[in-house]
């Protein structure tokens, strides 16, 4: 790929983000523009901001790679990422807004009046935030490494530096505008190249290829194996190799490989001819977003799919950077409307990555071998269109990918830093927030440097699983069940979220090599979410004396529309206000 276009595109995205962030609101207004100056954020703008913050690297690059490598089964990812907002809309959005809570720990305190539960929720917010930041940084490193010859760690460091600098310097003042801008940027960056790619595909005679057939090479292609792998061949294959296969060295020699498994060492170059089927690669682990450590999926596909569905459906409501954005809505009804628009915006966006995945299977099938399947979105424009147009479209996609890293990473960093300043670090103040911003970013950066080969899709899925098993019970039971007690909530979060976290850690450490236990640990949501709910309910029922005083009043406030909740106790005041409103109407008519 041509670096001459990619580097400026990425730089442009970074600069534009900083500029919108810093100057989006620096327009001063005089009092005559008062109504413009103090207009609340409407559902559409807020929804674009939420979507911008939510669509991360895993969505932008990872889904296309997953579809490319593993086929249409992986469509459950975009479905789950979107449907999470449906659950949020139905059960959480409006009551959460009416609770007046800004962060999840705030909600815990507002509902349960317990500082201990608040601190526990804060710890989980930091944990989920860090788990989710990890793939963003690694994805950035991968993108930059694929597009230019930069080392793996550089992209992550750039994203971390830009985010910490802007957030700590207070440059994200108009965060809503920044994130809304990022959403439209990301959509454009996928939509425009997609249109050209579809045209190119049609110009090519609209070739079709069933997903359950093995992909084939459409032209002669050289594949370089970056990481040693086992090739599984169903039938004999002739290939020109230079490198080591099954312990024997070859130098530009024609090799006939029999059916069976062959070990290909790293650095080997294989040249396939047109019409060859793409062999299936089996590898331990790699740095891609689309191959998973939880390879148990093949062993128990149904179980894994349900685990994925549950984690994404219920985990969205516990993502710290999503929850904070609902505070911007002026009231509960607006929060609900915002969620509906978010569903539409995210739904529209998620139509595109699978398209890239399908085209990638046709035009860049060797990516499954080289382990860079996540780069499919980035490589397709050059591969299918080529020339200057391809380079420019590729640069646009690269810019969009960086927007994805920046927006999600900055949202997460702000959320984690906010919780760190409020609940973990001792005193308050601006300096403390800067320190917390650094801390919020340094930890995941250090982990990603230590563990460069962590599968990114797993880290995202695991963040969702932990969030679904800790915050989902807290939010749903907190909003809908009046007998929830602080000990119950704490126990449920610890048991549900804690067990999910332990399962996550065990999977990442590669503890049980395979089998049913491995699948259970790799997709913990299916048992850890019910476990969290059950613990919360049982411990709450066992401690009936601990139901916080004033629970009914709090629940009434969560569920009644604001106007009603206010008017109920103060009928007289509402009446006077109604009178004044009709007065106001007369006035407007007089003016008109």
């Amino acid at each position, binding site marked *: 790929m041509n670096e001459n276009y990619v580097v400026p595109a990425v730089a442009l995205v970074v600069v534009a983000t900083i500029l919108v962030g810093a100057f989006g609101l620096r327009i001063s207004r*005089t009092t005559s523009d008062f109504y413009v100056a103090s207009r609340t954020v409407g559902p559409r703008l807020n929804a674009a901001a939420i979507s911008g913050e939510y669509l991360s690297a895993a969505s932008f690059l990872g889904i296309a790679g997953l579809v490319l490598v593993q086929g249409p089964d992986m469509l459950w990812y975009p479905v789950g990422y979107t449907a999470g907002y449906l659950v949020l809309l139905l059960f959480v959005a409006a009551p959460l807004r009416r609770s007046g809570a800004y962060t999840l720990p705030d909600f815990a305190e507002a509902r349960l009046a317990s500082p201990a539960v608040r601190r526990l929720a804060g710890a989980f917010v930091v944990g989920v935030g860090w788990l989710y930041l990890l793939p963003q940084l690694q994805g950035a490193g991968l993108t930059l490494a694929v597009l230019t010859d930069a080392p793996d760690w550089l992209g992550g460091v750039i994203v971390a530096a830009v985010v910490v600098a802007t957030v700590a310097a207070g440059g994200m003042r108009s965060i809503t505008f920044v994130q809304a801008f990022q959403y439209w940027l990301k959509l454009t960056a996928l939509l425009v190249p997609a249109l050209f790619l579809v045209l190119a595909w049609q110009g090519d005679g609209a070739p079709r290829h069933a997903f359950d057939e093995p992909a084939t090479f459409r032209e002669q292609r050289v594949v370089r194996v970056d990481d040693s792998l086992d090739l599984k061949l169903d039938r004999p294959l002739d290939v020109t190799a230079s490198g080591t296969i099954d312990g024997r060295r070859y130098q530009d020699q024609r090799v006939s490989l029999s059916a069976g498994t062959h070990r290909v060492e790293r650095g080997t170059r294989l040249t396939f001819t047109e019409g060859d089927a793409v062999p299936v690669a089996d590898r331990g682990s790699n740095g891609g977003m689309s191959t998973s450590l939880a390879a148990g999926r093949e062993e128990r596909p149904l179980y894994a799919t349900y685990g994925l569905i549950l984690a994404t459906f219920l985990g969205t409501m516990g993502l710290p950077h999503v929850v904070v954005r609902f505070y911007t809505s002026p009231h509960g009804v607006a929060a609900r409307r915002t969620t509906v628009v978010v569903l539409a915006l995210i739904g529209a966006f998620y139509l595109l990555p699978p398209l890239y995945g399908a085209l990638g299977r046709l035009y860049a099938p060797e990516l499954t071998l080289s382990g860079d399947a996540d780069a499919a979105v980035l490589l397709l424009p050059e591969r299918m269109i080529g020339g200057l147009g391809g380079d420019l479209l590729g640069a646009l996609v690269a810019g969009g990918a960086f927007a994805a890293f920046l927006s999600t990473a900055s949202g997460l960093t702000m959320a984690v830093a906010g919780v760190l300043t409020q609940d973990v670090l001792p005193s308050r103040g601006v300096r403390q927030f800067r320190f917390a911003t650094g801390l919020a970013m340094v930890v995941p950066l250090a982990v990603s440097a230590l563990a460069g080969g962590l599968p990114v899709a797993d880290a995202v899925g695991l963040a969702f699983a932990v969030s679904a098993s800790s915050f989902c019970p807290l939010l749903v039971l907190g909003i809908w069940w009046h007998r929830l007690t602080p000990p119950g909530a704490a126990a449920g979060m610890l048991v549900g979220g804690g067990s999910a976290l332990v399962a996550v850690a065990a999977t990442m450490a590669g503890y049980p090599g395979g089998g049913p236990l491995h699948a259970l640990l790799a997709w913990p949501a299916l048992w850890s979410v019910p476990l969290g709910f059950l613990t919360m309910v049982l411990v709450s029922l066992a401690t009936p004396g601990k139901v916080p005083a004033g629970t009914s009043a709090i629940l009434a406030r969560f569920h009644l529309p604001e106007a009603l*909740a206010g008017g109920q106790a103060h009928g007289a005041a509402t009446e006077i206000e109604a009178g004044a409103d009709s007065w106001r109407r007369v006035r407007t008519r007089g003016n008109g």
Partner: protein
Amino acid sequence: MGTGELTGFLAGLCVAVLPMLAAGFWLGRRTARQRSLGGLGTPVEHATFETLHTASLAAPPLRAGLTEETARKSARRLRTLLGTDALCLTDDQAVLAWDGVGEHHRAEITERLLGPLETGRGEAFRLKCDEPDCPLRWAVVAPLTVDDRVHGALVACAPGESAVLVRAAGEVARWVSVQLELADLDRSRTRLIEAEIKALRAQISPHFIFNSLAVIASFVRTDPERARELLLEFADFTRYSFRRHGDFTTLADELHAIDHYLALVRARFGERLSVTLQIAPEVLPVALPFLCLQPLVENAVKHGLEGKAVTAGGKSHISITAQDAGAEALVVIEDDGVGMDPALLRRILAGEGSPSGGIGLCNVDERLRQVYGDDHGLVIETAVGAGMKITARLPKYQPGVHSGGRLPRE
């Protein structure tokens, strides 16, 4: 493969260490709280420590007053303190909580309570019991008195008559009475704070009403349409400031009230006063004490125009900014007026300044501290002749603070 496994293992380790640290921290705090008695001192001293510790554990529930729940929580501790088989706490009518064996004596005790509650004197009596293996044969009643009024009684039951128990029950009852008195004090202190907040509720200044009406009157003949507009602004502003429900409002509503206020002020001062606004839409839903920014703007208007002679055409500029700062909203109100001597300002904020000077400032500062805590008072930067910059930090969430349920107009 080897490096992949190693890095995977390291990543897992990092993720695993996190919850372990959290759990360890939590456990550490729990155990540190419980292990307050060490093996210090002689056995007698140790017993003293033990007693004091039990007493201190029984105290917190009682500090919330005498109810069924607090009685249940403290009765357990008090029984350990007295070392009896059963102990119950009553109010002036019935048994609130029973700890220990023989709860079938509940009705009998309720019956026998009347005497001691009437006289306020302790009593010991024999219990009637049909069950042969019930260990309770005697009961000691010690009344709980607060301000010379009997509020309830502590009843200790034992197998036999014991002067020691009578004495001990009397002492414990006196100790419980003191706790109840403290609870009473707590309650009156809360009421005092509430009354103070109500008294502090900012009031619209009478001068402002006179001046506004005078300005409107001056327009009635020359520009009736303008006069009508201004009257409506005046009505809107007074409606907002006289409203009774809720102590809190949203930043959006407060800013609208400020807009109405400024419209009236500009009618009076015309071109001499210019105002710029810079408001982040993210912070408009923040809840804050009702009328706590308008006095600051009023103050800025006064200081800005003060000392600038009308003849010299002195103009004043006020800027109002509301920024989003993580979990807080940052509101800054700045004027370019005469400023103030910092020493004088300090006196005003300490509540000993001249009544005309900055009663508004002092009031707002006090209310913010009441609601958000002492580190959220106003920050004022000023010097003589250098204008004044007032910064208020409003947390986006504070327990108990939510706007009175009015929708901010979109």
